[in-house]
């Protein structure tokens, strides 16, 4: 302890205190404040950038999901549209077919009607002709039959017979 105190120099302690205090104040103003500020600023910047990157990534992710959804929707819409179109086409074809059928039926029935009418007319005509021909024949036959008296009587008898029998 004695030698410890003996070694203690008041002057050295005084200078040391002055110099250290001076160094402390100078470094505070010219070194530590700017250095610590820069370091803190940089750290803040780095963490900010990292955060931003993270945020951007998340945004990208949501955007990607959104895109996917959009794509899905578009695809579904397209499918629906195709389906719709097909259906429309089908119904149109069906409609057309139906209409055509109806039209054809109409045409057919018209044709049939016309044919029937023609047929009826033709038959009627035929009938009249056959009738006239028959009458002519009958006239001729009658003329032949009626040429002689016998024959007239026979015929008349026969006819009467026929009527009687009825």
């Amino acid at each position, binding site marked *: 302890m004695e030698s*410890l105190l*003996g*070694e*203690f*120099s*008041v*002057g*050295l*302690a*005084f*200078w*040391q*205190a002055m*110099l*250290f205090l*001076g*160094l*402390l104040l*100078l*470094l*505070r103003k*010219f*070194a*530590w*404040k*700017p*250095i*610590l500020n*820069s*370091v803190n*600023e*940089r750290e803040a*910047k780095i963490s900010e950038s990292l955060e931003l990157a993270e945020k951007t990534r998340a945004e990208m992710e949501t955007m990607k999901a959104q895109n996917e959804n959009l794509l899905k929707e578009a695809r579904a819409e397209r499918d629906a549209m195709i389906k719709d179109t097909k259906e429309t086409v089908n119904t149109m074809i069906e409609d057309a077919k139906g209409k055509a059928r109806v039209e054809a039926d109409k045409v057919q029935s018209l044709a049939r009607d016309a044919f029937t009418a023609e047929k009826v007319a033709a038959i009627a005509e035929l009938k009249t002709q056959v009738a006239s021909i028959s009458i002519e024949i009958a006239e001729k036959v009658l003329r032949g039959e009626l040429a002689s008296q016998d024959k007239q009587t026979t015929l008349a008898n026969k006819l009467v017979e026929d009527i009687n029998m009825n």
Partner: protein
Amino acid sequence: MYRLLRFILVVALLSPVLTSSVFANAEPHHGAPNKELTPEEKREKNTEFVKHHTHDSHSFGIVSSEEGGWHLGFPLPVILWDGGLHVFMSSAFEHGEKVVESNGNYYKLDTHDGKIYKTDEHGTVMTKSTVDEKTDEETISKLKPIDFSITKNVFTTMLMCLFLFFLFRSVAKSYKSGLAPTGAAKFIEPIVIFIRDEIAIPNIGEKAHKKYMVYLLTVFFFIWFLNLMGMTPLGINVTGNIAVTFVLAMFTFFITQFTAKKDYWMHIFWMPGVPVPMKIMLIPIELIGLVVKPFALMIRLYANMLAGHIVLGALIAAVYFFDAYFAKAAFLGLTFFMNIIELLVAALQAYIFTMLTALYFGSAAAVHEEAH
């Protein structure tokens, strides 16, 4: 600045080699002409040599030869307070051989303890006798002026302060060109961040550490670089001086007391959570602790650095003490090894001082939310 720093590190690493070459100049004194010295005398001389190199000095000696009687170095101003101011250069003492007259007073340098004593014109040291009233014992003490000289340690500290100022200012300036560290900042910045993240924040706290950072950083680099200066072969021993460590410990002590929150005083004078008799008993214990903390800081740094210097000095002296070449070689190797260890100690002691300072600041700044 970065180059200068590198230079200092290289010099510190090479110091065993350089130290040996410096002492090689003094070889004749240890060599053949002094063969008649007995081993005891030799031992005493070596002890003197080691002691001398751990002491502060009034001149900046670089190389000296006792054999040749010459010294290489430069004088430093001597400033004495003895009823008035006395200023002269230390060269006036002529290494303790001459009595210096200044404003009517006479002073002489004692080369053994490196102190300046008041003398009469013939160089006889003036004494003062004091009688202890209780024991009637008379103690005779030499008269000493108060010494405010720019000694070797003060001069070295001045240079170091300038160096640190320019170094850290250049580091601070380098951030102006961009946020990424360039030049010396690449070396300094990790240490600054280490002190902040590993020393300040864990011990003081996220919020309170900011106002202590200036002191912690300054004290760390101050001690570390002065420790490294002590590794150079110039025989500088600033941090191994009790006055220096006393001042540093005092700074820590006063900053702790002046920034202390209510809780800190509460824990000293009225310890919460213990019974009242214990509270009263704890007061003196806590008060002793208050003083012991800076005292331990002071002694730890002082003793570690001084011990390192003494060991290195002794090992270097041993190189010359033994005549056998293998012994010389062995001690040279050991000196080199010790130098590497001392480089580690230089950083370690700076770290420990800063660490404990932060711990004390932490207790001062702590705010306890709940009662214990």
